[in-house]
């Protein structure tokens, strides 16, 4: 091996190591974006660094504590086969009703153009004394978007969950459907709700997307199945 070849190999090696390091850094810091706002004037956007979990899953968590409310947001998602499990805990520590919005954006791996199946569900549990959780205007309490396109809405307006006296109450909603992916590199979820003073609410839910095999692929699979069966019969 000549000196030039050795240098070239060393150069490739170094580049490979560098790319590998960059990939590791990128893999070790999948960043989600969290936005929280209230009608009392609070509004912040954070970059939340994800922590890798076994498999391809990531975990993001963030807590906000003010004298008016606390919010605890925990998200578990898979960018590869886009899905996002969402948990949101909010306490309204004032004596007045409060409107709150919480958005979380997760980067996803690029999808193949075509049909996607989605499934999603959301549950809300409410605690307090004579308290209400309600939708705001005509917006659903929870929605999900792929890129800019909102494809799922749950706990649709007008939504209201009540607790009479001191106690607890729960409601849930599920839905599924298909959409055509035309672009977008993020999967995001949005919460918008009104919560009575002194109430605590906990949301639990998730959404997932599955690529629907394209029609030619299905035809090929069917053909392969028929051919396979014919061959087995002949044998």
């Amino acid at each position, binding site marked *: 091996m000549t000196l030039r070849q050795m240098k070239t190999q060393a150069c490739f090696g170094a580049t490979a190591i560098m790319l590998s390091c960059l990939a590791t850094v990128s893999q070790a810091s999948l960043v989600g974006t969290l936005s929280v706002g209230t009608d009392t*004037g*609070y509004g912040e956007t*954070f970059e*939340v*660094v*994800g*922590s890798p*979990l*076994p498999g391809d*899953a990531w*975990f*993001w*968590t*963030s*807590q*906000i*504590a*003010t*004298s*008016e409310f*606390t*919010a*605890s947001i*925990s998200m*578990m998602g898979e960018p590869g086969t886009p*899905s996002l*499990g969402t*948990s949101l*805990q*909010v*306490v309204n*520590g*004032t*004596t007045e009703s409060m409107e709150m919005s919480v958005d979380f954006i997760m980067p996803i791996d690029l999808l193949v153009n075509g049909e996607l199946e989605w*499934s*999603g*569900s959301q*549950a809300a*549990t*409410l*605690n*307090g004394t004579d308290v209400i959780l309600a939708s705001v205007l005509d917006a659903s309490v929870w929605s999900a978007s792929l890129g800019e396109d909102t494809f799922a809405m749950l706990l649709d307006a007008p939504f209201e969950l009540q607790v009479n*006296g*001191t*106690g*607890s*109450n*729960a*409601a*849930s909603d*599920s839905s*599924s459907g298909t959409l055509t992916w035309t672009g977008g590199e993020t999967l995001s979820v949005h919460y918008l709700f009104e919560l009575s003073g*002194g109430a*605590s609410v*906990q949301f*639990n*839910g*998730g959404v*997932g997307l*599955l690529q629907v095999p394209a029609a030619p692929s299905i035809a090929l699979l069917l053909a392969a199945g028929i051919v396979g069966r014919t061959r087995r019969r002949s044998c």
Partner: protein
Amino acid sequence: MAIHVTKSVAATMPMANRLHPAWSMEPLATSGRSDRMGYPPALQPITSHDFTNASADLAMDRRFAWTTFPNSFDQPRAALTNMTLRSAHHTSTWIPCRLNWLASGVLAATLSSASIAGSPPNVSMSWQASSDVDTPINFDLATAGEWAEMEDGSVVYTGALFSDTWQLSWTTSVTDDSQTTLDTLLTITNTSADNQWFSAGTDYEVDIEDASSRILEMASSLSLMNLAFDGSAMLQSLPNESLVGSLLDDEQVAAVFAPVYALQANGPFGIAIDSADESVFLAAGAATSLGQRADFMLTGGDTMTIHTIASISTIPAPGALTILALAATFGRSRRRTLRRELS
């Protein structure tokens, strides 16, 4: 509006720095012989469990009782708050590498605590996951996460922890004015592939005065979610214990979701919910803590929430009720007179 904390500081910190040196967890002390983690040798490890086997139920029950409440057979457990780290079990860099603990907002919590005058009430949590030999642990909520004093007088604590096999997020609100209230929001995810048993307890140290007629109102809501396109999620109580209970001085006084309780969520990202409540008259006697506990099995890869409120109030004595009724009547007649005078 004063913003005490906004974060995520902890999430951006290197693994090795995620545990604040002043903050610690340790397995509950056990009586009798135990291994280095404090578990009686014959009673570990806890594994997933088939409820169709009655003998296995009993074995599991005993094993779980031992590992969850190791002292329960001989003496009541001590108060939970204990923030000293005895790192004999956790040496060198093994803790962060093994556990990946996320002590959410430990640094931020320090800032939060500093920005609020006085110290918060003592509220602590005990936690155990059957797959994790580093549990059970006890931790103080004010130190492990963030806390804030609310405008309505309540104090709220919030935070999250996770390991390779589980995640736990909490928001706990306590009030001690006309009523003593403990409101706990818990989200638990089983990030392992197998079923796991979990035990979560919250303990609020508060002086509950002796009164002749007191009532404890307890209510709880559950939600369970199948975090996948296939299969289903299952939540189940212990064979002989209600899923959620309220405690006074570590003694259970009310419980909901009686054994054997099961909740199932089917289908892709399917969800199931349930609610229950109970009210009990309390026996006379003062108490120094109000607590809640939840013990349950959760299937692998799934997530659930438990939202429980317990409130203690005094029922006015008959004499006081008469005075109140008289006051109301008198007030109404006064208002009527005033209205007449104004018109």
